[in-house]
């Protein structure tokens, strides 16, 4: 099960986001049937989740984030897991933003998680042994309808 999982560990620092993008995009490139849209959507998902972690997870001393990527040969589904040891944060409890307000009253807080939830096929959070573990699953190779 773990043979097709690869992971990287970086400090939860906004500077490291390119390393995470490179890792995920490199993994996606190796999968047959991945289209540009899949890459763009995963870029968005990584941007939202990783920046949430760098902004909120650690207060004084910056800790690590482990990002793992899994794809089983022949499967049309990929999964990504983000693990940090920061303060407990369940993005699934994030208040759904009001997307019907006029421009002047709009706030962008919460929109990132909302976009991720609307883009991926499955998202699951657990807090285990002091770690935040967020797993997302996404079918790949589907053209937009």
């Amino acid at each position: 099960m773990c043979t097709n999982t690869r992971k990287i560990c970086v400090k939860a620092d906004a500077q490291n986001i390119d390393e995470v993008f490179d890792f995920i995009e490199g993994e996606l490139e190796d999968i047959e049937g991945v289209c540009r849209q899949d890459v763009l959507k995963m870029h968005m998902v990584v941007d939202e989740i990783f920046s949430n972690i760098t902004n909120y997870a650690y207060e004084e001393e910056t800790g690590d984030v482990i990002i793992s990527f899994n794809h089983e040969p022949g499967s049309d589904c990929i999964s990504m897991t983000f693990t940090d040891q920061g303060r407990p944060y369940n993005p699934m409890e994030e208040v759904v933003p009001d997307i019907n307000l006029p421009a002047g009253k709009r706030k962008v807080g919460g929109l990132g998680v909302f976009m991720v939830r609307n883009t991926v096929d499955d998202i699951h959070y657990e807090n285990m042994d002091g770690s935040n573990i967020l797993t997302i699953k996404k079918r790949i190779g589907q053209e937009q309808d």
Partner: protein
Amino acid sequence: MADIKKEISGTTMNIALGGILDTKSAPQLQDAIMESVADVTEINIDMAQLEYLTSAGLRAILVAQQEMDDKDGKMTLKHVAKEIIDIFKMTGFLSILTIED
């Protein structure tokens, strides 16, 4: 990740974007707009080369839209890719933005 070009003529600001507007590039767009918005009442953003955007990109666009609304100005987004329209739809931004082909 994004390429930002800016040109000002009179009270009009023309911006051309390329790449992906994300956590790294969106603050650059916001700065580019806000540092020279004082006399501007019309902003045109050409998105022909923009591939995608994240919530950070939405934030920069919202700030510019609010700035134009506050001074009775106008902001227009042009040549927006279908994938980006989908994001605007998903987040309810379609109803607060002016989009032209």
